[in-house]
């Protein structure tokens, strides 16, 4: 066999339950099954990685033949990697308030239908709701003798309402996902909110683009944190020279008082009891008082560039682990929401998120709000829609003028390298000076 410096195998066997209701019609409601394994071998230089369905981890022979096959792949690599030592350990998984497996599919469908129905407020023509439940049984073992197993349970939903009038169509959407139990009870309010937002957007204006003072609500400020700082602090991007934050440890990249954290130990939607390489997870302060303190790492990126904390390797089932965020947020400051609006005086308040994207090498990011309000004389004026914000990583954080005291986390999914993993982001309300607002209004 070719030289094997290290190997690990991670198996995820599980079930996915989906319920899809479209304007009162149950389109589908059912469960599917998967069983995926990823085998990694570190050869003389880099990784050989095998993905298989349905591997028997208890069969010594099967494990040996997979390691042998992966080592042959590793032999063609040329990038010399080392693995840093890292603390081991597995956190307890949060207890489930209510186990979704003990709720039958019929009740899930009925509860989701209630949320979907609540979105059908007058003026809404179309509603759609989707329940997603994932039960992952994870097993991991490596050539250093580490072995662990845990179960991750995720449950949540999204609801979309579309209002239309005279050929104009607008949408409102809400979602809520948790890792601590079943999550469909008592959620009709979110359905109603989606419906009401869709209807009120019919009368909203498209703002004029340009540089403005902007207030971001906690959900959008969370996406801002994720796109503007989170990705650029990922150790793999830094190592490969693809992040503007490379070489900036110890430098001021943001305003005084700014603290940015990635914390996989929080029982939010990005929680993980141990990372995908078997490394213990811990709270990582990326930025402290405006100074870049840490990158987020896996073992190989820590060995290559240092300056940070490992335990941030994650993977979608059936895919190799890469450096990812988990629960990413800006810590509370001391400004109240009213003080922020007053200080903004004339600008724009942006609410909710339709997603975002970043080019971390160029240091440019973009994200879109669900809706917003013009701010005039410190008061909310007309509602606006289809408004986005773009900025540059290295200057934008210096432009945070006020940090609120009302942090909230919002769940979502983050895509990188073709893999999607559950995350949460959050922040308090923020006031940004000179934000570039995109909008096609005149």
């Amino acid at each position, binding site marked *: 066999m070719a030289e094997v410096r290290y190997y690990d195998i991670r198996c995820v066997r599980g079930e996915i339950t989906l319920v899809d209701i*479209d304007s*009162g*019609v*149950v*389109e*589908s*409601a*059912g*469960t*599917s*099954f*998967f069983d*995926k394994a990823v085998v990694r071998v570190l050869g003389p230089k*880099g*990784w050989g*990685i*095998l*993905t298989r*369905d*349905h591997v028997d981890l208890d069969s010594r022979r099967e494990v040996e033949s997979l390691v042998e096959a992966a080592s042959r*792949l*590793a032999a*063609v*690599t040329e*990038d010399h*990697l080392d693995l840093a030592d890292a603390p081991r350990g597995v956190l307890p998984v949060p207890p489930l308030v209510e186990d979704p497996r003990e709720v039958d*599919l*019929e009740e899930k469908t009925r509860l989701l239908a209630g949320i979907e129905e609540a979105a059908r407020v007058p003026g809404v023509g*179309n509603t*759609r709701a989707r329940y997603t439940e994932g039960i992952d049984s994870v097993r991991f073992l490596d050539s250093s003798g580490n072995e662990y197993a845990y179960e991750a349970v995720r449950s949540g939903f999204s609801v979309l309402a*579309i209002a239309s009038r005279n050929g*104009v*169509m*607008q*949408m409102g959407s809400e979602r809520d996902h948790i890792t601590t139990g079943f999550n469909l009870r008592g959620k009709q309010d979110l359905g109603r909110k989606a419906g009401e937002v869709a209807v009120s957007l019919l009368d909203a204006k498209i703002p004029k*683009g340009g540089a403005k003072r902007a207030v971001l609500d906690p959900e959008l400020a969370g996406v801002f944190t994720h796109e503007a700082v989170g990705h650029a602090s990922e150790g793999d991007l830094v*190592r490969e*020279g*693809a992040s503007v934050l490379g070489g900036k440890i110890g430098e001021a990249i943001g305003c005084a008082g700014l603290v940015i954290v990635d914390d996989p130990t929080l029982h939010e939607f990005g929680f993980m009891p141990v990372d995908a390489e078997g490394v213990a997870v811990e709270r990582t302060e990326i930025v402290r008082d405006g100074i870049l303190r840490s990158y987020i790492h896996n073992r190989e990126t820590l060995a290559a560039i240092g300056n940070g904390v490992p335990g941030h390797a994650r993977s979608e089932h*059936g895919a190799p682990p890469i450096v990812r965020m988990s629960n990413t947020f800006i810590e509370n400051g001391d400004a109240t929401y009213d003080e922020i609006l007053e200080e903004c005086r004339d600008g724009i308040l942006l609410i909710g998120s*339709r*997603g*975002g*994207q970043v*080019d971390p*090498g*160029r*240091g*440019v990011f*973009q*994200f*879109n709000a669900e809706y917003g309000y013009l701010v005039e004389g410190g008061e909310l004026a007309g509602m606006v*829609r*289809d*408004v*986005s914000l*773009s900025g540059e990583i290295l200057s934008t954080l210096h432009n945070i003028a006020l940090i609120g005291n009302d942090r909230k986390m919002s769940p979502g999914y983050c895509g990188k390298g073709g893999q999607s993993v559950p995350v949460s982001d959050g922040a308090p309300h923020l006031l940004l000076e000179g934000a*570039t607002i*995109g909008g*096609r209004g005149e």
Partner: protein
Amino acid sequence: MNGDDLIERILREGERRADEIEVFYARGLSVGAEIKKGVLGNAEESEAWSMAVRTVRDGRIGFSATSDPDRWQECLDAALASGRLATPQQWGGFPKPADLAGTPSANDENLVVAVEDAARMVDDLLSGAAEHPVEVVGGGANLARSYLAVANSNGVFYGMGRTAASVSLETIREQSTGYEFDASPFLAEIDPRSVGERAAWLAARSLGGREIETGRYDVVLSPIAAASLIGQVLLPALSGRNVKAGRSFLADKVGEQVFDECLSVYDDPFAPGLGSAAFDAEGVPTRRLVFVEQGVLRGFAYDLKTGYRYGEGSTGSAVRSGGEGPGIGFHNLFIDGPRVKEPGDERAIWIHDVVGAHTANPFSGDFSVEISNPFWMEGGEPVEPIRTAMLSGNIFEMLADLGGLGNDTRRVGRLTIPSIRLNNQQIIGK
């Protein structure tokens, strides 16, 4: 038990317990060579197996899927259980065996799924990138071969092979980045060296861009930028399901001049391409579909479920992704039309790509995105890079008034599309 035997067994068992049953089966092998720090970093090989079952009983459709052959009975039980909860609907049956008219073109006999071949493609990408003074930060090459089969209790049992070769490269010079890619079923159509050279050119040439003032400008969207925006907004609006649910801007507009008369949109499942197929993901024979002809809206895409429900009939447009049930999609979608003159001949801003296309509003068509690798273009040539800016607009309005289509048609995923000139667009500078 091999795949075909297992399918037969599930069909026989399912027939006893439901009116009808369908099995969709896929297996595949792929290899990848991933670039890290300018050399070959990871070498990967993936073997995948998956099976999806749909049952129909009294118009109630059940679905389940598994990647574990040993769990096929559990999967069948789950499909039947799921059918009991689905709302019953009009249903005319899974398709019966038919003569498949066209010949798909998505299988390259000469493509070998070997990591050494992917490693050679990486060498070519890197030697192309070496033409310009940049750092390579990522990218790689992949080779894949798969077999797909769809079978049902009416006697349909179709299978097809597919291949795919793909390459991508990411480069950087200071804070200027470049990204290029290509994918085809046919290995010979992929030129890794030229992909590498283009990715490097973008980063090298975009350096030192000048600021631009907010205002209205003529722009040319590259095929990549156009595909990103059109994929997010136009394609969902052509799905029959969105049309019937009142989620499409184009609903009730069949026969109307909805777009510029130089624009046609059609799906050609027999053209060579990654989605080329003689039957769709439900075993319905595919056919060429015209959605927009010289700007006039001609029709929409349907699968069996939506077709039966609304009395429209399937257009052979069912596709599958991941472990989910079939949905409405496209095989090889073409954005096409007469080329009158080169769209870049008169001064305009060339936009290579956009950041954040997925945040466009798919119902209204409104968007505002950051632009990547923008250049001032004169006489069809990029003359001066622009530092950074946003582009705001409405995709449906843009497509109604085109400034011309380019001769630089290329495949971007399942779309085949030229560059598109749009006059008088909103650009927001910093």
